[in-house]
């Protein structure tokens, strides 16, 4: 009898293991086409809820399509819509959106007053736009104070600051910086009240579940950058609606009065 019970237990565990832990990843081959768009789907491996988060392999719709050739000199984002199905609390999904910079590099001339303190011969000056390729060799910096001997030593892309040396201590001057800039973009999370029929607006907490790999990318002229968007819902999170929608928006950082942004719709279907 004891042997029989042991057999039952072993068989039960084996059954549990087979049913609960089979995993597969299917990544269909995508052939780009403009006229008949084809869905690209990845399937994530099933997960035992006790196993914790599941991480997908980022997958992208690489394309040399006619559309991308036509839009070479424009800013664009692809895809327009991403659908996540069979999602659940504790799961994690990753997808790369593609952001393209159709702009050329732009020459910049900026002037600013700089006061140096006693014994101060170096310091940082901020520029308004990202320095092309972070390359300081292309920066021309001049001062109206003849006693300055300015040299650019380094560039910090995070603060868009140039570190300069050669300032005359305890003096005032106007510094002119000539440089070439690339284009800075933003990528951010957004909730819209425009949703598909049957969908709900994203839960308030969803903004904490969406992780944007790089929210302020700087792109070279004509560069297309992949930016990973992660949906990571904690295991203990309560998602009130089965189907909901959030957006990610991308656009150029601009100082103009009218600004444009491109919104990718994300439709999430929970189990």
């Amino acid at each position: 009898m004891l042997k029989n019970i042991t057999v039952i237990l072993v068989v039960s565990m084996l059954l549990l293991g087979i049913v609960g832990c089979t995993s597969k990843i299917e990544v269909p081959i995508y052939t780009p086409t403009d006229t008949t768009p084809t869905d690209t789907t990845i399937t994530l491996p099933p997960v035992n809820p006790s196993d914790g988060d599941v991480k997908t392999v980022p997958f992208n719709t690489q394309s040399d399509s006619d559309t991308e050739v036509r839009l070479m000199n424009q800013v664009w984002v692809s895809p327009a819509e991403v659908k996540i199905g069979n999602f659940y609390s504790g799961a994690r999904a990753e997808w790369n959106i593609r952001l393209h910079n159709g702009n050329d590099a732009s020459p910049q001339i900026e002037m600013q007053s700089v006061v140096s303190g006693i014994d101060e011969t170096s310091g940082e000056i901020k520029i308004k736009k990202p320095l092309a390729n972070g390359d300081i060799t292309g920066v021309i910096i001049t001062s109206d104070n003849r006693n300055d001997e300015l040299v650019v030593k380094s560039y910090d892309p995070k603060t868009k600051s140039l570190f300069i040396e050669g300032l005359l201590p305890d003096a005032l001057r106007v510094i002119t910086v000539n440089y070439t800039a690339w284009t800075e973009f933003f990528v951010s999370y957004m909730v819209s009240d425009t949703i598909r029929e049957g969908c709900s607006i994203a839960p308030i907490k969803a903004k904490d579940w969406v992780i944007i790999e790089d929210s302020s990318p700087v792109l070279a002229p004509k560069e297309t950058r992949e930016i990973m968007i992660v949906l990571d819902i904690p295991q203990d999170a309560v998602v009130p609606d089965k189907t909901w929608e959030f957006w990610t928006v991308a656009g150029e950082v601009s100082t103009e009065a009218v600004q444009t942004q491109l919104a990718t719709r994300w439709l999430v279907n929970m189990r």
Partner: protein
Amino acid sequence: MKKNGLRNLLATLVSLVTLLVFCVTPAYALSTADVTITATPEWLSMTNSVDNWTMGSVAEATTYWWSATGAQPASNPFNAGDMLSTISNLGSVLSDVKIHGHNFTAAGGAWALDVDGSPGADNVSIKYGITGENVTTMHYLTLSDVEIVDSIAATVGTMKWCMNLLTGTFTAGSNQTGVVTLNIFKHV
């Protein structure tokens, strides 16, 4: 007696294991449904032909136009020639465009966006309109996204538009910076 007790214990164990199998299996079965991510290769791209509006010094309680002539269009309804800017959908999908405003920024006395057409101290209201509308059917710009274009065709649908700004009263003479945002997204 001991033998019977052991049999009862074993029978209980068997029952428990069987119950466990039936209870637990459905939970694991749920996890076998795959998470899927699906996307269609589609591109979003738009331009707006005029993106600046420099007004210079402005007076209180006065309306300023962002239109082809810089004044209120004479035609009713507006025709395309009255409009200042053109929104173009360069992308590959039928799309909608939403618009929203922001409160102004300034060193002092920044203007807040008024949304009902009666701007008070340090308030302004902005209205927008498209070809085919007129002065009375223009819409107030708000801080929330509102649709300005429904179903603009891909490659290349266009729509022309204009704005006006009504000032309130001012408590400071600061330079004011305002932003209007256009947001394009796939039509559903």
